[in-house]
């Protein structure tokens, strides 16, 4: 339904459109090449500077991680000197509920452990978890409930939200096997130390807020 109609600059090489449009739509992975974008990654590496200049006009910056093999666009933080020219953000920030944020943090932890453990003899760069694995991961942090089915449903809805955000990928279920999810490495770039520190700070603030009314009650 959405069709971008960016006019390519008249003097630019035709490559620029084929690079910028996928970037605006999402993440470009080196390893997920299809017939259409076979040379996309290499083109992107070569014409990085031009892409950066181009998207800077839209208030975006290009994040390109060669080692990990992904590239995406991010909102450029304003320089801060002229508050009058605050540009509206092109890349929105989605609000997340607490369980989904927690799930993201736990998946990041799993990814870090996976990297440190050398892929546990599996010889792959891909961390794949089944739905049961994910439930086990988050179960201990959710409030107790005797209704097991409801817990699974809730975790399912959290997983769906993370899939929607683009950090988990549903894998094609093989015959007779339960569905599995791949944790995409782009999670590393979005759930980074800063985001986690922010999460930590909010938790601390929430905790303090819980304790204060208790104290106020005790005082009275």
């Amino acid at each position: 339904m959405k069709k971008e109609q960016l006019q390519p600059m008249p003097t630019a090489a035709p490559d620029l459109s084929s690079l910028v449009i996928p970037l605006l739509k999402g993440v470009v992975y080196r390893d997920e090449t299809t017939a259409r974008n076979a040379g996309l990654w290499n083109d992107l590496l070569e014409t990085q500077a031009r892409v950066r200049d181009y998207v800077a006009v839209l208030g975006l910056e290009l994040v390109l991680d060669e080692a990990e093999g992904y590239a995406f666009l991010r909102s450029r933080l304003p320089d801060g000197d002229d508050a009058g020219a605050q540009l509206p953000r092109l890349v929105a920030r989605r609000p997340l509920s607490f369980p989904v944020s927690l799930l993201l943090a736990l998946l990041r932890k799993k990814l870090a452990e996976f990297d440190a453990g050398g892929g546990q003899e599996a010889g792959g760069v891909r961390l794949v978890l089944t739905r049961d694995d994910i439930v086990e991961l988050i179960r201990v942090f959710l409030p107790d409930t005797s209704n097991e089915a409801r817990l699974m449903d809730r975790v399912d809805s959290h997983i769906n939200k993370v899939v929607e955000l683009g950090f988990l990928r549903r894998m094609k279920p093989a015959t007779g096997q339960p569905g599995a999810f791949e944790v995409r490495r782009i999670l590393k770039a979005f759930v980074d130390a800063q985001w986690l520190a922010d999460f930590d700070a909010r938790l601390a603030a929430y905790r303090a807020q819980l304790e204060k009314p208790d104290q106020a009650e005790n005082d009275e």
Partner: protein
Amino acid sequence: MGLDFNTLDLLRQNHPAWRLLNSPHAPLVASFLHRVFILPNERIIAQAELVEKLEDELYVLRERRGTEAFPRTASEYLNDWAGNDKGWLRKFYRQNSDEPYFDLTPATEKAIAWLGQLSERTFIGTESRLLTLFELLRQIDAGSEADPETRVAELGKRRDEIEAEMARVLDGDIPFLDDTALKDRFQQFMATSRELLSDFREVEHNFRTLDRGVRERIALWEGGKGELLEEIMGERDAIAGSDQGRSFRAFWDFLMSSARQEEFSEMLERVLALPAVAELEPDARTRRAHYDWLEAGEHTQRTVAQLSQQLRRFLDDQAWLENRRIMDILRGIESKTLAERRTPPSGDFTAIAQIGAAIELPMERPLYTPALKPHLADRVLEAGDVDLDAAVLFSQVVVDKAELSGHIRRSLQSAAQITLHELCERRPLQHGLAELVAYLELGGEDFKTMVDEEAKEIICWSGTDPDGREQTKQARLPRVIFLR
């Protein structure tokens, strides 16, 4: 490894190879895995394929032993064998596919190789092995000799021996190896080449263990980054620089030279043609021994390259520091969450940037088209009477393809080539367009044809139209030539 009681006891419980031999399903596991992995020298097999093969095997076994034998499904067995408590198969995901793949573990290969040796050998050669031992010692000795004069003396001695032999051969006294000696040596060749092939998996396994060791050291490092780098300065190539790595590298370089490969193939061909060797009935795969090594070696090379790359990435500056910090923060988050378990925060808690830019162009939305609502009219069906000549339904055109192909064949007897136009002139089309299409169909299926796009031909036929009048129709198509 000392073979004392405690070691062996532990080994019996923990080593997958021993567990395999102990298991009640050992004949099934060993025979199936041998047939599927080792005989065709496959390194990895996709899950769907492997499940199918195991199902076939289980079906055959159930026929023979009754339906109670091996009650579980093939995929259950495979997942069980790949589990941590058994450890006979390795299950993993490959780069560009969503399907899991299976591979043998080196322990399984060892167990199966050992089972292969249990069968009695009719002839156990000793002479060739003694000669090999001599040769090895000589190589070690000569290779570690530092004094150049001694070396030159050794080489001189060998040269004299070779010259004496050349003189003997020119005189006509050609020493042949007798049949026993040939068989002895060939048997040793087969045994060693099989061992070499089965060792590749273990080489790969060792590489992975090395890699994991390095990563653990990195992850648990408490001190500063500088000291860590000093400690493992060269260990970016820790894998390639180890004993395992160097030996493998030397083997690979030796094998990769195409001159050597050709030499090997030729020698192997000649040897396998000897009658004495043929008596030993060598495995058909011995002929391809060096290709098998190449395949296995290539696979191992790729694994090593992948491991080195991942290690390099792991050691990358930013990633390392961030990983440490992330683990610390995560620990904090976990402890706080556990404390607040009963009262989790509700509503929106954090926010995260979206992955792509949300570009919505209002004018791109398609305009409203009212949905097609099928109008179900509730009417009673009545039988209708219509004056129609139903003969039209029954007057079908039947084109006798056999007759047409007979015509083509007869025409091709007299000429090597014939165009479609000529065929239609010799035997005019009776059923019109349907017959023409039948010719083209025959041309595609049963006869060799060539189509000349440049030249066009016009084919005419006459027929009767619905009113009963004669009319001619013509079709223009590229020239189609039927060949003998």
